[in-house]
């Protein structure tokens, strides 16, 4: 990352945070909360595809199981929301350990197919188990009181709770990417045999990244079930896995803010197209095709490329053109 883009990143982060604080007063809070949950989900997904180079086509499993566990424990066991979310995240992480342990035996296309098939198992489990409520899902999930004090039924209180969770998740991912651990992940993405020959046990790194990604997806799903007070089969279906891929692709694979931007774009699009029924699927598909053919860097990726070109071209710029590979 060049100086220019790093600076841009800081500014963009500050601007986005300011927007996030003002937004619920301007727009319908539930809409923004939905977008934030999906933004966290997409960031978690991006950790795998963007920084380890593993395309998971089954992330709905972790999102969905988080959603179901939180909805069930909060409703049936009357757990406080913070414990419900913790449990949902923990179960998603456990599922990530098992599925990740199986899936990292293959890479590339096979990895995508394996994760998709494993996730479909979770879907059938949710369809058949008595506690998940089958086709109805778990409805009327109580939001409860955070730490026994804050009433989450207040839209604004709920909103800032969700924003807090999103920022926490985003911070964890940010720290992971910029840690020595994150650099090993990038090394695996670029050249796995070389990383192995340098003495890194790449399977352990991949598994840890997978579990982290699954846990944060679970956190997103758990939060979503409290926002909508609903956990349903949509959360675990393969279309959900496709949706998170789409968000990340639109925003920009392997960029820090890309998934956030992509999630807001896709959610907004779906919001406006909702009344057209199946056309939403058609348009999603067209966006997929266009992104792959002509727009592979995504929105944020294009912005970064644009800024980098400007920085290099500007005469007498403070930062000289950087060596390739940085």
């Amino acid at each position: 990352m060049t100086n220019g883009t790093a600076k841009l990143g800081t500014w963009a982060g500050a601007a986005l945070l300011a927007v996030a604080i003002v937004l619920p007063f301007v727009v319908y809070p539930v809409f923004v909360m939905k977008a934030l949950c999906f933004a966290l989900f997409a960031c978690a997904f991006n950790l795998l595809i963007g920084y380890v180079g593993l395309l998971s086509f089954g992330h709905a499993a972790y999102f969905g199981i988080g959603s179901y566990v939180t909805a069930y424990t909060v409703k049936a066991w009357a757990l406080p929301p913070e414990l419900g979310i913790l449990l949902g995240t923990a179960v998603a992480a456990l599922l990530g350990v098992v599925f990740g342990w199986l899936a990292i035996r293959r890479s590339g296309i096979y990895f995508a197919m394996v994760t998709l098939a494993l996730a479909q198992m979770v879907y059938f489990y949710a369809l058949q188990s008595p506690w998940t409520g089958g086709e109805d899902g778990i409805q009327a999930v109580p939001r409860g009181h955070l730490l026994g004090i804050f009433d989450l039924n207040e839209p604004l209180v709920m909103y800032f709770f969700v924003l807090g969770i999103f920022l926490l998740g985003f911070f964890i991912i940010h720290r992971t990417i910029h840690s020595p651990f994150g650099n090993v992940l990038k090394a695996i993405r670029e050249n796995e045999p070389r990383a192995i020959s340098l003495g890194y046990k790449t399977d352990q790194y991949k598994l840890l990244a997978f579990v982290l990604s699954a846990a944060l997806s679970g956190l997103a799903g758990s939060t979503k079930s409290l926002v909508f007070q609903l956990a349903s089969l949509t959360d675990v279906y393969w279309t959900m896995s496709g949706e998170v891929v789409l968000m990340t692709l639109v925003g920009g694979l392997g960029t820090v803010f890309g998934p956030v931007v992509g999630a807001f774009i896709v959610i907004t699009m779906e919001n406006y197209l909702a009344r057209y029924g199946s056309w939403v699927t058609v348009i999603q598909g067209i966006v997929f095709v266009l992104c792959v053919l002509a727009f592979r860097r995504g929105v944020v990726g294009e912005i970064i490329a644009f800024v980098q070109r400007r920085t290099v071209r500007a005469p007498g710029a403070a930062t000289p053109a950087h060596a390739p590979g940085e």
Partner: protein
Amino acid sequence: MFELLGIPPQALFGQLLIGLINGAFYAMLSLGLAVIFGLLNIINFTHGAQYMMGAFVAWFLLNSALGLNYWWALLIAPIVVGITGIVIERLLLKRIYKLDHLYGLLLTFGLALVIEGLFRNYYGSTGLPYSIPPQLAGGHNLGFMFLPNYRAWVIVFSLAVCLGTWFVIERTSLGATLRAATENPTLVQAFGINVPRLITVTYGFGVGLAALAGVLAAPIYQVSPLMGSQIIIVVFAVVVIGGMGSIMGAIVSGFGLGVIEGLTKVFYPEASNTVIFVIMAIVLLVRPAGLFGRAR
């Protein structure tokens, strides 16, 4: 009447038959996926949608002014859907061969969404009935079970198609060219063979196979826009289990897993939806490259 392991033989053989039928579709679809993957290095996510299109073309032909019957559909549907496949390959897929394989998966996934969405838009999610051709109506009583003629036909015909494909690829000079192009396209092109055209034709053929499976499936399941996405994920698991190294591997694992799924329905129905995924997990533990795959 005797009983086998406490299961009445009618139920056992009935499910075995359904398993074989499903296995026939798994085999034809995973065969097409394997052939396409061999040459294009793309996992064709659109395969399920193209299988569904095959069934719909059969339905259109029957209900159009022409009123063409099942036997015409068996011939026309693979050609029509194969041509749409060729158009897709020429317009879209050929632009991404130089990119990471994952983009191929994403592109074909997008196409699958478009096709499925369009069909769902016009035909809803409920199935349209397609009746069994009169020549194959009825069945035979084999003593231990009742065998409907149409089901026997599906098994025999799909087996013949699979083995025919295997023969062409493994035993003819065209197949030898194809396998050579899979190994080293640049060298094959240097020998004066038009590899891009070979790729186009191969994709059309693989897609045609999917459409043929769709026509066969139309009288058994209903013709529904959702039929493709329901089967494609299972077929992916079949492909992971079999490995994409060999044509025969795709056929054997397709039929074998269909039968296992059918037997699970008899002995432990709750697991029948997931048994193939469980087997996939076990195979990943024991032989990550797949039963017939080559380690890479």
